[in-house]
């Protein structure tokens, strides 16, 4: 809360200062070139923030960002730059509504920018929706292509006055000097305004736009949506498994990034005369460079990098000694060489850029913790943990009631077959789970057990067969939708969100139960804070059950192996499932840990009213806790029954030990 207030305060101060920063009147503090530089920095910041959302936080490689900038800029020009649109608008705002001239110009600029944002957002949707469901490389290709198409269209279009360059000030001379212009009642108005106070219109809005952009991106980053984006970046499959609709998030981030670029374009068109050369692939690369140098995912890093990347070439251009006799174009060419070298060097030696994923605030906190009084900050207050547990305990009663009401089987799999090309991985698999059962799925390596899990959770769509959870078919659903229906899983090779904290890992899993969306996150509504606090309490409750409550701030991949496995189960539990699928949870554990795990599984089953299906190789664990066991071999079910029956089943013995063992 405090941060937001400080931030708004800064915005207000900057906005009030902006008239002082304007030029073309007396009393200016900055020269015209510094002024222009400041705007360039501001625009680069907006562009970098947008790309950071897509590339830095969501991990989607988009290299056509200049295309959205161009789309926004030219859309704004069409509304605000062409005389046939401009004059009627001014006539309306100034003439009809009798707003002052300045206000009229502001209104025109705002309509231009609003259209710019809309056009860019629509384009973002058009480009993003089909390509974001494909592999990462394809997005790079598609955005590259998009950027090129936009550049070609702009370069060749007569309507956009490509060769002369369109811009709000470029057309004024012909219009003002023409017969129609001179006769128009707006002639003096436009003349006075354009020559006397042009920047008053744009400086305030550019700075405001920059501040709003930073605020919006920051709010998204520190919210459920932000965590979800980071999760998508870390591991798409694990994100889907905990209920994050990954494609929807990718597209949302992409559209927001495009809209921000569009806004920058709209403002650019009021600030400068547009030149099609400004919107080529090189511009996209420049924005990419800023995000890479600043740190993918870091807001302060990007701001610093934007300032550096905009200032350094300018100061070099004016600062190098005249005696070196370098002409401007040569410096420009070397500038690009330097960009290229920086990109390569960054990737080879410091891929996380200046600040990685962290902000200045994070660095400050780390320093305080290391050297200062905040040593106790790592431990979470006991009251919060207790509150979390009591929330979960209260829910247990509802779960038990729900379970009792469950009449039919919880999960039914009928004739499920999974073929990969010519290989039949799972053949006519059938399963019926009643609520509250603890069933084991065993078989030699390669029998198809994990494939069954993948089919049950929607990672693969079965070639044939049906799967129903609580009487409703889940076969056509995406994994995150299946997770919402109450099916959670862990993975054979641990798939945690490695670079995120333990707490974040568990909090992300509660995504499906969050009602507050991205808009609430941006606006920071009271409902948003309530939900965040609630989510945190619950997450701590889950972590406490698994003994991880005081490890909240640690990075997930720094935990011990056993802790990581427990964290994965805690994360799965946080999705509030009815059915929990555990894939080799005891792998890599010593006998003591295995005993503890067996107790833990029994505890959570009764406590949360879960139905559990467990894949395991360790017979002690399986025989120890399972009520029923299904045995797979080469994709086929060769036996089902109680542990005793399975132990003596000749087909099972043959599958594991070979035919000769049967006789022995």
């Amino acid at each position, binding site marked *: 809360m405090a941060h937001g207030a400080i931030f708004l305060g800064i915005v207000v101060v900057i906005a009030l200062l902006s008239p002082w920063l304007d030029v073309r009147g007396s009393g200016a503090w900055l020269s015209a070139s510094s002024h222009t530089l400041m705007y360039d920095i501001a625009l680069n910041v907006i562009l970098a923030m947008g790309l950071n959302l897509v590339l830095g936080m969501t*991990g989607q*490689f988009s*290299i056509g960002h200049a295309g959205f900038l161009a789309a926004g800029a030219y859309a704004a020009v069409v509304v605000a730059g062409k005389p046939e649109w401009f004059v009627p608008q001014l006539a309306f705002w100034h003439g009809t509504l009798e707003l002052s001239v300045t206000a009229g110009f502001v209104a025109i600029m705002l309509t231009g920018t609003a259209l710019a944002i809309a056009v860019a957002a629509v384009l973002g949707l058009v480009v993003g929706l*089909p*390509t974001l469901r*494909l592999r*990462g*490389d*394809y997005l*790079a*290709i*598609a955005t*590259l*292509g*998009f950027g*090129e*198409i936009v550049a*070609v*269209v702009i370069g*060749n279009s007569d309507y956009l006055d490509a060769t002369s360059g369109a811009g709000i000030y470029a057309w004024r001379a012909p219009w003002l000097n023409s017969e129609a212009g001179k006769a128009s009642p707006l002639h003096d108005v436009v003349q006075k305004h354009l020559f006397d106070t042009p920047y008053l219109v744009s400086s305030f809005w550019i700075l405001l736009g920059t501040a709003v952009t930073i605020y919006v991106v920051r709010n998204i980053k520190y919210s459920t949506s932000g965590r979800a984006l980071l999760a998508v970046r870390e591991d798409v*499959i694990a994100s889907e498994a905990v209920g994050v609709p990954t494609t929807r998030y990718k597209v949302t981030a992409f559209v927001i990034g495009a809209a921000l670029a569009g806004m920058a374009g709209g403002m650019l068109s009021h600030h400068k005369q547009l030149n099609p050369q400004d919107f080529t*692939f090189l511009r996209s*690369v420049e924005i*990419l460079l800023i995000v*890479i140098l600043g740190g993918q995912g870091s807001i302060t890093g990007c701001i610093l990098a934007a300032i550096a990347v905009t200032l350094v070439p300018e100061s070099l251009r004016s600062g190098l000694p005249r005696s070196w006799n370098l002409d401007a174009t*040569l410096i420009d*060419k*070397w500038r*690009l*060489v330097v*960009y*290229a*070298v*920086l*990109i*390569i060097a960054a*990737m*080879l030696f410091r*891929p996380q850029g200046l600040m990685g994923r962290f902000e200045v605030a994070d660095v400050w906190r780390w320093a305080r913790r290391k050297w200062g009084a905040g040593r106790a900050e790592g431990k979470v207050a006991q009251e919060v943990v207790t509150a979390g547990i009591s929330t979960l305990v209260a829910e247990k009663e509802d779960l038990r009631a729900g379970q009792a009401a469950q009449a039919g089987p919880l999960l039914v799999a009928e004739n499920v077959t999974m073929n*990969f090309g010519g290989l039949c991985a799972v053949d006519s698999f059938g399963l019926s789970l009643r609520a509250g059962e603890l069933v084991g799925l065993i078989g030699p390596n390669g029998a198809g057990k*994990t494939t069954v899990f*993948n089919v049950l959770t929607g*990672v*693969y769509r079965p070639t044939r067969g049906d799967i129903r959870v609580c009487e409703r078919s889940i076969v056509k659903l995406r994994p995150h939708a299946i997770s919402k229906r109450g099916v959670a899983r862990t*993975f054979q090779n641990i798939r945690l969100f490695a670079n995120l904290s333990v707490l974040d890992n568990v909090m992300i899993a509660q995504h499906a139960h969050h009602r507050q969306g991205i808009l609430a996150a941006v606006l920071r509504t009271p409902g948003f804070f309530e939900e965040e606090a609630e989510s945190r309490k619950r997450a701590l409750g889950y972590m406490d059950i698994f003994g991880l409550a005081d490890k909240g701030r640690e990075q997930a991949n720094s935990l011990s192996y056993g802790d990581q496995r427990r964290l994965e189960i805690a994360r799965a539990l946080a999705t509030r499932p009815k059915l929990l699928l555990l894939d080799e949870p005891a792998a890599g554990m010593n006998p003591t840990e295995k005993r503890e795990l067996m107790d833990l599984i029994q505890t959570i089953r009764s406590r949360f009213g879960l139905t559990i299906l467990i894949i395991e190789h360790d017979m002690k664990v399986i025989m120890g806790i399972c009520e029923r066991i299904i045995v797979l071999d080469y994709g086929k079910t060769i036996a089902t029954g109680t542990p005793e029956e399975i132990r003596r089943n000749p087909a099972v013995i043959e599958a594991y030990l070979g035919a000769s063992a049967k006789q022995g």
Partner: protein
Amino acid sequence: MDYFLQQLVNGLAVGSLYALIALGYTMVYGVLRLINFAHGEVFMVGAFAGAYTARALTGDKTEQTFWQACVGVMVAVMVCSILGWAIERFAYRPLRNSSRLSALITAIGVSLLIQNLANIEWQFAGYRWFGSTPTNYPAIIGAGEPVQVIHRLLGVNVVWKDVLLLATTGAVLVVLWFIVQRTRSGKAMRAVSQSYDSARLMGVNIDRIVSFTFILGSAMAAVGGCLFCIKNPSATPTMGVIFGLKAFVAAVIGGIGNIPGAAAGGLLLGLVETFVSSMGYSRYESAIAFVILVMVLLIKPEGIFGKAAPEKV
């Protein structure tokens, strides 16, 4: 009819160039799952190498003999092979175990670096090297003449240039087929692109095979660069950008990672581009490739010859 045949020949000529470059992209993608953005720049360097060899052999004249051009191609192949090897060795190999995103970004960086270094005019040993003013590639004497045989048979004006282009590309493709299908290295390359880890476990020296792939692709790009200059005699530093991009699109259309697909994609793109351009939309010629790309990505993202492969969890 004549016009149609003429455009057909043009389309095939351009398409075969696209195919040559597309093959480089697709082979590298097959073994490393990396889009080698710098490949277009290797093509450009090949063109310049050919031009400078001609400059040295003919003494800065505007025409060269066929044999001089051959020497030019050989020099270009050597230069580009070294360049391709160096790019892989110093920019991509250190990142082989990093994320795909890092490798992609580095590839863009390398592409930019070469492009912009070439954009600067260097003075060395009394000669000008590279620079943004177009460098002239001397025309091959007699290449502009129409082929008499075809003119008499079909009444079409097909110049020797086009025949040279098609014949050379055809020969290169045959050699490539032979290398990929009939040699041990080719087999190893196919193995690596099917399963990186299994190939490693079977004793394939990954570093060697990757270098081999890059050298092979770069050599073909060098030939492509010189052939391109036979048709369009001026070489500029940015020629590799758009051409490389379009060749890459051709590779995606055919199925990225798929060798016959790249060849087919290249020819297809060349033909479509030529025909659309001849219908009067030549201003938007550059955009055609990307429009096709978008359509392919929407309808069949794995390309014409590609197979949709589900990811193993």
